[in-house]
């Protein structure tokens, strides 16, 4: 089943800015979908329309088959939203925020309290349940928004840059949590500026730029389009100059680090062999930038 179906969606703001230009997008049930794009590309506008916070100019949006124009309540019941900006009352406690959200979705207070406990515990916020939300750290506020979005147990969770400004350890634990709920069947749509995040979490991807979808495919297919990769090699012993290798583009960063650009078709083992023969031993290697980041920049530059 299609979880999210967007057809010819257009949004023109009163100042004539075309935020979305007839975009089409399908997200399948159970997918972990990345919606990427630079700032101002139209991601948040699209999410705003899906969640009924922004009025569309034309086009249609269906959520699990429910059209947002004709069956708005059913469509809304299927979605949980974690917005980019903090949007809860800073004077309410964590428990109040989550329980009230359950009430807005028609969940009885006693039941909503149980659900709130379940999700606050999962997100390590139960100890803070009676704390005013303004006293929470940035990471806790983000987790609170996730707990609030899940209280009505939606079929689809939309996260608009959920890990922005969150430290690495917390980001990793949020990833694990999202993977877990995705495995339980919740469809996830994620926007993020951390491309490493999208690369490791998402199965399918759409890239939006200037209000248009410039790429919409599976993560695997997209990454296979990358015909060159740049690696950083850390060397065991320092070298003064690079060996002359005609078929490889090598750059000496410092005496123990070299940068290598390798065509996708070329065998990297061959390079290791050559370097070993020349008494250059590699202790570790890594991608210079995330593969998705390279593709992302390429796509945006090509389509500009």
């Amino acid at each position, binding site marked *: 089943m299609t979880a999210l179906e967007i057809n010819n969606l257009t949004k023109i703001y009163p100042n004539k800015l075309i935020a979305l230009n007839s975009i089409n997008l399908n997200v399948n049930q159970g997918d972990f979908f990345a919606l990427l794009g630079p700032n101002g590309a139209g991601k948040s506008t699209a999410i705003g329309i899906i969640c009924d916070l922004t009025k569309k100019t034309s086009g249609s949006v269906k959520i699990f088959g429910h059209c947002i124009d004709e069956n708005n309540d059913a469509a809304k019941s299927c979605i949980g939203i974690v917005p980019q900006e*903090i949007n809860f009352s800073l004077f309410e406690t964590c428990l109040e925020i989550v329980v009230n959200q359950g009430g807005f979705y028609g969940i009885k207070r006693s039941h909503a309290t149980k659900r709130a406990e379940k999700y606050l515990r999962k997100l390590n916020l139960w100890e803070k349940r009676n704390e005013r939300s303004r006293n929470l750290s940035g990471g806790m506020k983000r987790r609170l928004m996730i707990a609030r979005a899940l209280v009505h147990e939606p079929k689809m969770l939309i996260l608009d840059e959920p890990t922005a400004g969150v430290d690495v350890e917390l980001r990793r634990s949020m990833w694990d949590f999202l993977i877990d709920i995705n495995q339980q069947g919740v469809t996830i749509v994620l926007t993020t500026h951390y491309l490493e995040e999208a690369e490791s979490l998402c199965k399918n991807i759409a890239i939006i730029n200037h209000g248009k979808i410039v790429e919409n495919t599976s993560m695997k297919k997209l990454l296979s389009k990358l015909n060159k990769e740049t690696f950083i090699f850390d060397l065991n012993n320092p070298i003064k100059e690079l060996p002359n290798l005609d078929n490889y583009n090598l750059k000496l960063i410092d005496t123990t680090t070299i940068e290598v650009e390798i065509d996708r078709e070329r065998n990297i083992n061959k390079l290791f062999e050559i370097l070993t023969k020349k008494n250059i031993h590699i202790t570790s290697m890594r991608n210079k930038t995330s593969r998705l980041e390279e593709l992302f920049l390429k796509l945006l530059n090509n389509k500009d």
Partner: protein
Amino acid sequence: MYKRTVLIAFNTIVIKEVTRFSRIWMQTILPPTIAMALYFVIFGSLIGPRIGTMNGFNYIEFIAPGLIMMAIINNSYGNVVSSFFGAKFQNHIEEMLVAPIPNIVILAGFVTGGVARGILVGIVVTLVALFFTKLNLHSFSITIAIVLLTSIAFSLAGLINAIFAEKFDDIAIIPTFVLTPLIYLGGVFYSIDMLPEFWQKVSAFNPILYMVNTFRYGMLGESDINIFYAFAILIIFILILFFISLHLLNKGTGIKN
């Protein structure tokens, strides 16, 4: 099933609203109580005896219904305007907008919150008034009906103000420059019979005059105006405000892009 869902959503908004103004009682309940106590001390106990009677009642007895009504009007309006604007300002109005709540339920929830605060402050001010004067109750049903209708009307007016407000100044302009003059000129402190004929006719356009006088009728059995006429005007006023605010919410004015 749908009705039950909607009812739970409505209850949640009301609980949220009542919790909000109860949590900040030092800003919401205490100031009007102190202000009204000062009015009773100054205008009732100190100046009142020198004024003598008004329409056959001691001055303090005459102004007590007006002062109670003034507190109800200010607090029902103030509650909704500050709560709804606060929700817009902090973006947590989105919590309701993303949920399957009909706009009429959002409207009813905020208005009920305003009515609750208006009535609560009204009760507290009435208790304060009892320290200064005896209070009559000519008609319980008229008194309750006018309190409810007035607080509904001003809660709706507060909602419309909050929908259009873009900054904090915008929620202070109407209470300062419109509401306060209308209340002071609405027969709280005097009978309009004391005014020259021209100003009596001008006063007839002040809706608060009808509310204050009907409430005074409910308590004292005496009014400057026809109370059935007053109820009719108030109901029309409420209907107009209701349809305007519902239209604005449906249109997404001030809350949706």
